């Protein structure tokens, strides 16, 4: 039997991946998790490789997670965030890409507020591009770390019932997770306010539901999404109070799920808006594990992409 191998130059999303590729990333991440338990958490795997972290949109968590993953793999990383001199306002993305190409990096990690930016960069640079979140489109490493977390708790993904709750329309996390969970055989229900549900949510191959309690019924996994009520200048929800009343996850509501349900959140949480503290800090919460798994998944992705370029140790 031949070993599955990674051949892609870029990781732009979960949608194009096969179940085998997803499993390969997860298996690779498992082996990197072990490194985090060592006293010296560093391996020479990516020594001599340069990684540019391009964060056009601020995201301390995702950026730190990638940086840590790069350091643990001994890569040389360089950070550019919005406001830094390399990402000048007004410079076209194509010019930015040309400048970056001139630095001859091996990998680019890209976060941008608009969908499709990592795709455009991937077309224009030789480096491998990792999408670290493009608008409301995809956030593949988040879905992979969520899957790793689920797998470590449940031992499988196929056959699980997963409920994803919140602002589905504006979430990149949802889209990546929906693709991944479907490819690995879970059944997914998305739930949220009608004003925050994309018009064609059912075309994503999920069950769409507008009632939190119904969505929680029998769930093995509950993923809560961050409700960014303040970000919506267009009236999508009248108030935080109303939001929590309809879609806030309390312990009483969670009782409808399976007894061994795990509760996830991509962070940062709004306590008292989408999730009550009693749940966030409760027995089923795996939110902090997600953070730890995030580093391992990002190490795996960096490693696989670098190896696909050849010259990886």
């Amino acid at each position, binding site marked *: 039997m031949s070993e599955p191998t990674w051949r892609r130059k870029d990781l732009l999303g979960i*949608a194009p991946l096969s179940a085998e590729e997803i499993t390969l990333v997860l298996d690779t991440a498992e082996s990197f998790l072990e490194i985090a338990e060592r006293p010296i958490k560093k391996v020479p795997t990516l020594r001599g490789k340069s990684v540019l972290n391009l964060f056009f949109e601020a995201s301390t968590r995702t950026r730190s997670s990638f940086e840590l993953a790069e350091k643990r793999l001994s890569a040389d990383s360089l950070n550019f965030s919005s406001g830094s001199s390399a990402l000048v306002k007004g410079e*076209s*993305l*194509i010019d930015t890409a040309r400048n970056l190409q001139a630095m001859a990096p091996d990998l680019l990690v890209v976060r*941008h507020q*608009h*969908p*499709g*930016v990592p*795709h*455009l960069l991937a*077309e224009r640079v030789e480096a491998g591009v990792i999408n670290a979140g*493009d*608008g*409301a*489109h*995809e956030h593949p490493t988040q879905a992979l770390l969520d899957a790793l977390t689920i797998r470590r708790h449940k031992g499988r993904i196929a056959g699980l019932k997963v409920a994803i709750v919140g602002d589905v329309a504006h979430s*990149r996390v949802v*889209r990546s997770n929906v693709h991944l969970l479907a490819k690995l055989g879970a059944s997914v229900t998305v739930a949220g306010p009608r004003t925050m549900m*994309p*018009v*064609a*949510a059912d*075309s*994503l191959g999920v069950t769409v539901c507008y009632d939190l309690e119904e969505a929680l019924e029998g769930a093995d996994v509950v993923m809560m999404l961050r409700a960014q009520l303040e970000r919506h200048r*267009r009236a999508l929800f009248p108030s935080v109070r109303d939001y929590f009343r309809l879609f806030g996850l309390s312990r009483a509501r969670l009782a409808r799920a399976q007894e061994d349900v795990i509760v996830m959140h991509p962070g940062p949480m709004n306590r008292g808006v989408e999730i009550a503290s009693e749940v966030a800090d409760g027995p089923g919460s795996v939110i902090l594990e997600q953070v730890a798994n995030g580093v391992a998944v990002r190490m795996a992705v960096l490693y696989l992409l670098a190896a696909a370029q050849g010259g990886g140790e």
Partner: protein
Amino acid sequence: MSAHLIRGGRLVDPSQGLDEELDLLLEDGVVARLGAGLEPPPGAAVTDARGLVVTPGLIDVHVHLREPGHEYKETVESGLMAAAAGGFTAVACMPNTEPVNDNRSVTEHVLRQAARHPYARVHPIGAISKGQKGEELAEFGEMVAAGVVAVSDDGWPVKNAHLMRRALEYARHFDLTVIQHAEDLELTGDGVMHEGEWSTRLGLPGIPGAAEDVMVARDLLLAELTGGRYHVAHLSTGHSLELVREARRRGVRVSCEVTPHHLLLSDRAVAEQSFSSHTKMKPPLRSQHDVEALLAGLADGTVDAIASDHAPHHPDEKDVQFSAAPFGIVGLETTVSLCLDRLVHGGVIPLPRLIELLSTGPARVLGLPGGSLAPGQVADVTLLDLERRITVDPTTFRSKGRNTPFAGWTLRGAPAATFLAGRPVTLP
């Protein structure tokens, strides 16, 4: 006196119900005679049109020539060369220039530029409101005197229902058509593509079909109230088409145009072309369901015209991420081949109906000269080669714009030549 005989072609003229092999004699800028086996008068030039289709000159009622103000995107000169290369003998140009064509001097400037570059006729469209600000009516009378053929605030929908009512009423003094870019900008919000399955998948903010439909519905009621002539620019949804169909049955004076891209592409193209800004325009590429409704509207006669909404942008403006790119694509040099290949050879409509949509219909909608080869009509003629195969190559465009989602498409059928006022058009 000048004379030109176009001999041996298949003459298709929907205005006279003609589709047969006929010779066409042009004299002194007008159509002199139609007939079989015509002999050229002494001194007449002769064009051998055997194997070609001879039609009334094609007219595009919706183009952006960008001059004055945005000459880096297009000029009257480059736009008219593009028109001629694309088989058109006349274009109607939108007023969203800088300054806006909301007064006599801008209209005259555009016409002066056009006179210097006589590759095709230019029919300027004036603004509905001063500065296209949607507040006060522009001086229709002054602009008409200078040569404006219709009014529109294209790009800036007339939001104020009262202003729209007054525009429809006042335009009746000049028998002007009021053209609306129908879009409720509040419903559009920050939308960049059609709201549906593909916006859901791609995570791009959506523009619902209803953003168009609500304004078309309102305007049709206002057109009924006022008796004004109302034209829907780049109609893109099945619902809007149904509203037009139903209003026309009630006797409302309404017409509509659709673009080739809304007929041939759906919102899926945004994903297929991986977020290419060449799939970004307004209205956005709609659902497959809408595409099918528009195609049905071509066949059943509801649609009056095919117009390109030729919207050139500089490559630097379009070569950016999807969300940051301006809306719009070029169309003057692709429309004819796209329509011949996909609509005629593709079996959607017969050739005479296409010529109606590209010539007779546009002339009727805006009350323009042409659209007919009846004796006495202006001698604007287009020759088409139904069999020539072309591959769309933006680097060969006469337009300064290169922004098209059709690059690389191989198409059967192409324009072969145009005649303007009886003389063959040659491009430098």
